[in-house]
């Protein structure tokens, strides 16, 4: 099981801020995860956008990065505060 977090507009797009899911055995990196989740949820590419970065266990990573059970994986659209 892994924790998937959807930040910013992706929370609206998916309808949930986070979920606890079992990673299929053929999903072992962030690129595969993006494609699989986007298809599962019929998001039409929202999770595949280049401006959406992934953080694995609170570290921003470059695709493809390994993912495994127990990871916290965050989908992060462009950030900005202030």
């Amino acid at each position, binding site marked *: 099981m892994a924790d998937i977090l959807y930040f910013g507009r992706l929370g609206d797009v998916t309808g949930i801020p986070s979920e606890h899911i079992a990673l299929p055995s053929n999903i072992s990196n962030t690129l595969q995860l993006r494609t699989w989740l986007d298809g599962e949820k019929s998001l039409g590419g929202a999770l595949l956008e280049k401006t959406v970065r992934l953080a694995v266990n609170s570290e921003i990573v470059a695709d493809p990065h390994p993912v495994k059970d127990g990871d916290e994986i965050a989908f992060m*659209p462009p*950030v*900005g*505060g202030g």
Partner: protein
Amino acid sequence: MITLSAQPFDAGDELKAFEARASGAGAIVSFTGLVRDRASDENVRILHLQAYSPMTERGIEQAAARAEARWPLTAIRILHRIGDMGPGEPIVFVATASAHRRDAFEAADFLMDYLKTEAVFWKKEVTDTGERWIEPRAEDYQDSARWALTGED
């Protein structure tokens, strides 16, 4: 000193506390960002700020450390709201103290550029007619890129 706060704050009180802490500094620069009340001709009702703790705090701490490495600062204060806030409320307060004013100005400017374009926050504006997520503007990224230059510009 870095704080994410779900409660409103008063920038004047923050400046008082900062001045007490930074005594002997000579120069203090503060920046206060306020929730705007209009967006594209619509009234803004609520601004919602989402963070990802502790990544958000860690990133801000690293930016503060970069500022301290680059400018001789005697104190830094960064206070950022999270959650829901109304028009006119402060959303961010940054203060820097230094012996010389240019260092205080540049460090505060740098920290604000970080907060605007790199700090791990997501912003949603709720208006009379709906809501939308706000991402940094092109000019925010340009402002931020200034600091990548070598030297003191």
